[in-house]
C-alpha cells in the first residue's frame, strides 16, 4: 500500500494505482477524456494534469503511478488555466453542432467544457473537413466531432481484440477511420459507441430518436446468451429506443455485444402475436382469450381422458423466465399429471449434467483470468459467450497461454499462442491423444490419479490413441500435438473450455466426457472445465424442472424431446412454450412430420413462428421486456428482468397464461400472483452450484462421423453467427442489417472446383433434404468443409441436419452445387 496526499487529503492506495484512479476512488473529481480503466493509460487529452510537489513537470494523472509521499494538487489556478487552454484547443475543430447531436446532454466533452472551459475562444479557425461517415450498418462516425482520444480504437483493438478502427494520418489532420477499407466491417459490438466521450460515434438505429434528457433509463437483463449482461434500456413514450452498457454494471461490468446492444428491437417485429389464434377450416384466425382457454381446456381434457395424461407433452423455453418455466412444468405435473416435459437443453446442458451430475459443474465467467493455460476445444466462445470471450482475451493479455483447437479461423485463433487446426468433430480423438501422451510421459500425479475409479479402463481405451493415429484423425502434426500437451500438462493452472448446444454439431456427450476425463487426469477440480450454458435462461429452466424425469415426485420418467418431436404417435398433444423447433432443432423435416400427426399442438410465443404456423392454437405471450421474472445466467446467478414497456396487444406473460388455463380447467395450482410463484421458485434459485468431489473416469472412444463420399463430398459444420442467437434475434431489424440470411461458407478451393462464386446461390443437399443458400467464399475454413448457421427461419438449414440415435446432433455430409439461373 502506498500513502500519498491529494488536495491535502491523506490517502492510501494499492501500489500500481495511478494518481487518477487514486483520486477517483477517494471521491476527488478530475476531468478526463481519454482514460478508461479497461485500457492502457494513453495520456492524450491532457485534462487530467496535476501538480506534484517534487515533480518539475505537470503529471498526467491517468498515466502516472502513485509513489510514496507524493503531494498532489488537482485544482490550482495553473491547472485550471492549462485545462482551459486544452479545452479551447480541443474545441477548435469541434463543430459545436450540439443541437443536432444525439450525444448532447450526456456528452463528456460537453460536460467538461461546461465545467472547466471558458466562454470565449481566441482561436476560431479550423473546423475539420468531415470525411464521409462510415457507410456500414449500425454505427455512424462523424469525424469532425472526434477529439482523437483514441478510446474507440483502443477498446476495439486492446479489449475486443478486433482492431477494426484505426488512427489514420498524423498531426492535425489525423482522423479515426475503419482500419481496413472504407466501410466499417467488424463485430458490431458497439463498445466504441459507449466509450466515445463525444458524439463522433453514435448508434444508427437510435439516430435522431430522442434527446438524452427525455430518455428514461431502466436496467434489465439481456435476453440473448447465457452470460446475462445487464442492459440499460433507454425508453421514451413507452418504447425502448436503445440499449447501452454502464460502467461496472452487471456481470459484464458494462461491456455488451451487438446482440445486447442492438437486438432488443426483436420485440417490435411485425409478426408479434397480438391475440390468440385458433385454426378454423385450416386457417389460423384471431380469437378471444376466453375462446382460446376453453378450446385448450376442452381439448386437453378429452385427450387426457381418451389416451391418458402421458399422451400430453410440453416443451419449455430458455427464453422464458424461471417463473414461466416453473409454471409450465407445474402445470404438466400437477394439472395434467405427466412428466413429458423437456427443452432444447437436452442437446447441450443436459449432456453436461449427464457427465457430472447436477452438482458437478460450476461456471464462472471470470475463470479464464489468471490461468496459466487456457485450452479451448472447437468452440467460438467469443461468439456464443461474448463476456467469456472478452475475459479469455484479457487473460491472454495478462500472460495466459491460449491454445485453440478449431478447424475454423476465429478471433480466438488469431489471438492464440497455438492453433491446432483439427478436422471438425475430431475433438474426442484429440483429447484422447493428449491424455495418452500425458500418461505415457508421466505428466500427471500417478499416485493419486490411478486410484480414481475407471483409471485402468481409461488406460486401455487410450492405447488406441497413439500420436501418429491421432495425427491422422485430427490432421495436426504429431509435433503440434506433443507441444500442446506438454504446455497444457506442465502448467500450474488450467482452464479447458467448450460450448455445447443446439446450434452446433461437432461436439456431444462423448466430448464432454473426454474433456472431463482430461481434467480428472490432471487432478484438477471440476471447475477447470468450463462448459457455459447457451441461452439467457438455459440453466434456469433446467433447475425449474423442465426435464423429463420424476424429480418432483410424479410417476416415472417422462418422454424426451427426441421421442416427442421425432417419433410420430408417441404423444397426442404438445404444448410448446417459447420455442421454435421447426427452425432451430435438427431435422426439421422429421419434426414437421411428427407435429402434423398431433391431435393438438399449442404454441405459445411472442411471434408467429414457423412452429406456430403448424399449431392448432396459438397464444400470444409477452416479451422479456413486457413482464417481470428472473433469468439464471450460466454462472447460476438469478437476476431479475423487469417490465419496462407495456405488453403488445393482448399478450400476457407466459406464467399468467398457464395460470389462466389451469383456472379454466378448474384446477387450483395454488398460484395467483407472481409472488406466489416466487415463493416456490426462490429456494430453487438460491441453492448454489457446488462441485461434487467424487471423480470417475468415463473412457470414451472417438466415433468418426459420417465420412464424406462421392455423393456427399463435403462435411457441414453448424456454427453461430456473432450477431445472432437462436432464431429470436433474426426478428431484430438492427441485427438483420448486419447478417440477414444464412451464408454457406465454403473454402476458396472447393468453391473454385465446384464453380461457385462469392455471394451466389447454391443448392445444398444432404441425406435429409435440400435447401438453397447464398455462398460465401472464404479462406477461414479448411477445404472439404462448409459452415452454416441455423438461426434464420427462411434458410431452413435444419432441413439438412439429423438427430443421431442417441439424441445428439452429428455432423452431416452434403453436396453443394451452383444454381444456374
Amino acid at each position, binding site marked *: 500500500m502506498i500513502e500519498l496526499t491529494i488536495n491535502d487529503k491523506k490517502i492510501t492506495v494499492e501500489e500500481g494505482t495511478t494518481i487518477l484512479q487514486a483520486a477517483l476512488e477517494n471521491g476527488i473529481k478530475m476531468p478526463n477524456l481519454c482514460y478508461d480503466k479497461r485500457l492502457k493509460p494513453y495520456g492524450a487529452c491532457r485534462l487530467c494534469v496535476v501538480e506534484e510537489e517534487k515533480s518539475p513537470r505537470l503529471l498526467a494523472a491517468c498515466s502516472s503511478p502513485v509513489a510514496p509521499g507524493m503531494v498532489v494538487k488537482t485544482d490550482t489556478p495553473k491547472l485550471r488555466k492549462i485545462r482551459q*487552454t486544452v479545452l479551447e484547443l480541443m474545441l477548435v475543430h469541434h463543430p459545436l453542432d450540439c443541437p443536432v447531436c444525439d450525444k448532447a446532454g450526456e456528452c463528456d466533452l460537453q460536460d467538461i467544457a461546461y465545467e472547466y472551459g471558458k466562454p470565449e475562444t481566441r482561436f476560431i479557425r479550423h473546423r475539420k473537413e468531415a470525411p464521409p461517415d462510415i457507410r456500414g450498418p449500425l454505427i455512424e462516425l462523424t469525424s469532425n466531432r472526434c477529439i482523437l482520444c483514441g478510446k474507440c480504437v483502443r477498446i476495439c483493438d486492446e479489449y475486443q481484440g478486433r482492431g477494426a478502427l484505426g488512427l489514420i494520418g498524423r498531426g492535425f489532420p489525423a482522423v479515426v477511420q475503419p482500419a481496413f477499407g472504407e466501410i466499417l466491417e467488424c463485430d458490431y459490438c458497439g463498445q466504441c459507441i459507449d466509450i466515445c466521450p463525444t458524439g463522433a460515434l453514435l448508434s444508427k438505429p437510435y439516430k435522431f430518436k430522442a434527446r438524452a434528457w427525455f430518455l428514461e433509463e431502466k436496467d434489465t437483463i439481456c435476453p440473448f446468451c447465457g452470460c446475462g449482461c445487464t442492459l440499460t434500456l433507454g425508453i421514451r413514450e413507452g418504447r425502448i429506443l436503445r440499449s447501452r452498457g454502464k460502467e461496472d454494471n452487471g456481470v459484464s461490468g458494462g461491456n455488451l455485444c451487438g446482440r445486447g446492444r442492438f437486438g432488443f428491437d426483436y420485440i417490435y417485429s411485425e409478426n408479434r402475436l397480438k391475440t390468440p389464434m385458433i385454426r378454423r377450416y385450416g386457417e389460423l384466425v384471431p380469437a378471444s382469450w376466453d375462446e382460446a382457454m376453453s378450446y385448450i381446456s376442452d381439448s386437453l381434457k378429452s385427450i387426457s381422458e381418451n389416451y391418458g395424461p402421458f399422451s400430453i407433452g410440453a416443451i419449455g423455453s430458455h427464453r422464458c423466465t424461471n417463473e414461466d418455466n416453473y409454471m409450465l412444468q407445474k402445470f404438466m405435473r400437477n394439472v395434467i399429471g405427466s412428466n413429458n416435459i423437456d427443452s432444447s437443453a437436452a442437446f447441450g446442458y443436459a449432456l453436461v449434467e449427464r457427465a457430472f451430475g447436477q452438482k458437478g459443474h460450476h461456471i464462472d465467467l471470470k475463470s479464464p483470468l489468471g490461468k496459466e493455460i487456457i485450452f479451448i476445444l472447437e468452440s467460438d466462445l467469443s461468439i456464443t459467450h461474448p463476456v467469456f470471450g472478452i475475459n479469455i482475451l484479457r487473460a491472454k493479455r495478462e500472460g495466459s497461454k491460449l491454445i485453440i483447437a478449431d478447424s475454423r479461423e476465429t478471433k480466438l485463433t488469431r489471438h492464440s499462442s497455438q492453433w491446432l487446426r483439427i478436422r471438425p468433430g475430431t475433438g474426442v480423438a484429440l483429447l484422447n491423444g493428449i491424455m495418452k501422451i500425458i500418461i505415457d510421459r508421466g505428466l500427471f500425479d500417478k499416485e493419486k490419479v490411478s486410484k480414481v475409479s475407471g483409471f485402468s479402463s481409461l488406460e486401455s481405451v487410450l492405447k488406441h490413441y497413439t500420436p501418429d493415429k491421432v495425427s491422422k484423425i485430427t490432421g495436426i502434426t504429431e509435433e503440434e500435438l506433443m507441444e500442446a500437451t506438454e504446455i497444457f500438462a506442465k502448467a500450474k493452472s488450467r482452464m479447458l473450455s467448450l460450448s455445447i448446444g443446439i446450434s452446433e454439431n461437432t461436439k456431444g456427450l462423448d466430448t464432454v466426457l473426454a474433456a472431463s476425463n482430461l481434467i480428472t487426469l490432471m487432478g484438477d477440480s471440476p471447475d477447470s472445465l468450463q462448459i457455459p450454458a447457451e441461452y439467457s435462461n438455459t440453466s434456469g429452466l433446467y433447475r425449474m424442472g423442465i426435464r423429463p424425469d420424476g424429480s418432483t415426485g410424479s410417476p416415472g420418467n417422462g418422454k424426451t424431446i427426441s421421442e416427442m418431436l421425432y417419433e410420430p404417435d408417441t404423444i397426442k398433444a404438445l404444448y410448446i412454450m417459447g420455442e421454435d423447433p421447426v427452425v432451430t432443432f435438427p431435422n426439421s423435416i422429421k419434426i414437421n412430420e411428427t407435429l402434423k400427426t398431433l391431435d393438438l399442438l399449442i404454441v405459445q410465443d411472442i411471434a408467429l413462428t414457423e412452429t406456430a404456423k403448424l399449431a392448432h392454437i396459438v397464444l400470444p405471450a409477452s416479451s422479456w421486456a413486457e413482464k417481470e421474472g428472473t433469468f439464471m445466467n450460466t454462472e447460476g446467478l438469478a437476476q431479475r428482468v423487469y417490465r419496462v414497456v407495456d405488453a403488445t396487444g393482448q399478450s400476457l406473460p407466459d406464467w399468467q397464461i398457464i395460470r389462466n388455463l389451469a383456472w379454466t380447467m378448474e384446477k387450483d395450482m395454488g398460484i395467483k400472483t407472481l409472488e406466489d410463484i416466487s415463493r416456490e421458485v426462490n429456494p430453487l434459485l438460491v441453492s448454489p452450484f457446488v462441485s461434487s468431489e467424487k471423480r470417475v473416469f468415463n473412457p470414451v472412444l472417438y466415433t468418426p462421423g459420417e465420412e464424406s463420399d462421392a455423393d456427399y463430398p463435403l462435411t457441414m459444420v453448424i456454427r453461430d453467427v456473432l450477431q445472432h442467437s437462436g432464431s429470436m434475434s433474426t426478428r431484430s431489424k438492427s441485427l438483420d442489417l448486419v447478417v440477414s440470411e444464412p451464408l454457406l461458407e465454403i473454402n476458396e478451393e472447393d468453391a473454385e472446383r465446384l464453380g461457385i462464386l462469392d455471394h451466389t446461390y447454391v443448392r445444398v443437399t444432404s441425406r435429409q433434404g435440400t435447401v438453397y443458400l447464398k455462398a460465401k467464399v472464404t479462406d477461414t475454413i479448411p477445404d472439404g468443409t462448409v459452415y452454416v448457421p441455423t438461426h434464420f427461419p427462411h434458410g431452413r438449414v435444419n432441413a439438412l441436419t439429423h438427430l443421431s440415435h442417441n439424441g445428439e446432433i452429428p455432423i452431416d455430409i452434403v453436396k453443394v452445387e451452383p444454381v444456374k439461373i
Partner: protein
Amino acid sequence: MQRLTIEDLKNIKEKHKATFALREGGYRAKVTVHMGTCGITVGAKDVMDALINEVKKNGLKDVTVGSAGCAGLCGREPIVTIEEIGKETIKYCDMNAEKMRKIVVAHLIEGKPVEDYALPHQKDLPFYNLQELRVLQNIWFMDPESLEEYIARDGYQAAAKALTQMTQEEIIKVVKDSGLRGRGGAGFPTGLKWEFASKVQSEVKFMLCNGDEGDPGAFMDRSVMEADPHSVIGGMIIGAKAIGAHQGYIYVRAEYPLAVKRLQIAIKQCYEAGLLGKNIFDSGFDFDLEIYQGAGAFVCGEETALMRSIEGKRGMPRPRPPFPAHKGLRDKPSVLNNVETLAQIPLIILNGAEWYKSIGTEKSTGTKVFCLAGAIKNVGLIEVPMGIPLRTIVYDIGGGMRGKKKFKAVQMGGPSGGCIPESLLGLPVTYEDIVKSGAIMGSGGMVFMDEDNCMVSVAKFFLGFTTDESCGKCVPCRVGTRILLDILTDICEGRGKEGDIETLEDLCKDIIAASLCGLGMTAPNPVLTTIRYFKDEYEAHIKDKWCVAGVCRDLCTFFIDEKLCKGCLACLRACPSKAIVGEKKKPHRIIQELCVHCRSCYDSCKFKSIKVLPAAAREASEAELLQLAGVATPTGV
C-alpha cells in the same frame, strides 16, 4: 573470414600496418577519396574511377588508393586526401574526374602538388585545427566497408576487453565516470541509463540504437553510420553486455540508404567473424543485431514511439512511466542510445574515463559532433571539445557567414531548439550553458542565419515542421502547434494584430507544460526564443507591416537607392517579372505595380543599393520613398 579471437585482432592490426603503412620499399603514398553521401551526390564515384584508371595506366604500384567517409567540409566535396611519406598531407576539394587525372600526373608522378585545387594546409586551417577528433577520427581515414581496416585502427579491442575482462558493473562504472551524456538531445547520463536497465531482472532485454536523425539539416549520425558503422556496433556490443541484453536493433530511417547498406555490410562481416552471434570472443556472451528501417517520421525518434515502431505498430509516443529501462520494446527492459553516444563507447572503454573527461567541462565531458548548415561559410561536419565558445565555432571553424554577411542567429537543437543571437555567442557549448539561452544542445544541428533571414519566418519554418510531424496524439501539440503556425502565418502575411505576441507566448507556455512527449514540449522553443531575442522584428511585422529582411512578400517594398545604384543591370536581369527599368551605368528603378516581391533583385545587387521598406511604401510616391529609405526604422529599434 573465420571466427576472430583477441589474438587475431592483434595479428590483423600488425599485418595491416606492415602492408599499408607508408614506408620506404612499400607504399609511398595513399590517396583517399571521401565517399560520404555528400561526396557521392556531387560525383565522388567519378573521381574514384578516374583515380583508379589513372594510377593503373601509369603503373603507380607504390600508391595505394582507398575510400573513407565525409571529410567534414561538405560544401567542398568531392574531397581527396593525399598522404605521402615525410610530406604534408594535402586535401583537394571541389574535385572532378578531370582534376583528379591532372593531380595524379602532377602530384603523384611529378611531385608537384596542384595548389590551385588544394585546401590550405590543414594545420593552418582553423576549420581543422580547432577540432578534436574522437568520434570522427576513423571517418576521415578509413574504408567503411573494410573490417580489416577498422581492426587495424584498434577496432573491436574495446569490445574484446569489455566481454572478456570486465564485469557489467565495471563497464557501467567506467561509462558513468566518463561523464558521457546521451548525444540524442536530452543529454541523459549514459552510464546511469545502463545501470537502471542492468538492475532490472529479465531474461530478455534489448539494446537499441537510435539512428532516426529527424532534425532537418542534421547529418551527424548519418555520417557516422555511413563511415564508421563498426564503432556503433562495437558500442552496442559493450552496452548489451553492460545491461544483459542479447538482442539489439539499429533503427535507421529508410531515407538513409547508404547508411543502411554500410551497416548491413558491417553486420554481415561481424557475423562471419564471430563478432556478433553466439559466444563472442569465447566469452560466453551472445548478441544478435538487426537493422530496422524506420518510416521516417520525426516522432519515431522519440524513444517510446521508436520502440512501438519496431513492434510494427503506429509510431506514437506513450506516457512514461513505465520507463523503457523497465518496460521498453515488447514490454521488456530496453536501452536506447543515440548513434554518436554509442560510437563514443569503445573509445571510453579503451582509453578510460579519465582520458575521456580530460577535455570538456565538468558536467559536459568529451567532444560533440555538430553539423554546420545555413548561411555559414564552412558548411559541414565538425567535432569540437565541449566547452568551446560558440563564437569560435561561428567565426573560426565556420569561417563566418557566406558573402561577408552579418551573423544574426544560430538555431541549435533543430525544431526542438532555439535561436541564439550574436550577444550570446560567448556561451560555451555545454548542456548546461546552452539551455540558458532558451535553445538546447540537441543532437548537433546548427543552422546559421544572417542579416537576410526573417526571424518570424524562421520560427514559422520550424513550426511548420513540427506541426506536420506531430503524431496527433495529444491535444496541446496536435492543435496547439497548428494554432501557433496559423498565428505566425498571419503575422508573415500581414494579418498580424496587436496581442498576437502575447497570445503566442501564452500558448507556447501551455503547450510546453501540457504536452505528452518531447516533441510537443519543445516545439514552441523556436517561437519563444525568436520572440525573446527578436521581438522588434515581430513588432515591425505586426505594427508596421514591415519585414525588414525582405523575406515576407506581403510585408515589404523593394526600392533602389539611386545614390548607391551603379547601374550594373544585375537586378534588371534577375527580375522575373520585368519590373525593373534602367540603362547601363544609370540608376535603375522598380515599377512597384509590376513587382512581385520575390527578392531576386535584392539578392543580386552587389552594392547593397536595394532597400526594403514597409508594405505601405508601395503606395508612396517616388519622393516619399526616397525619404523613407533614408530615415525609416522599424518599431522597437
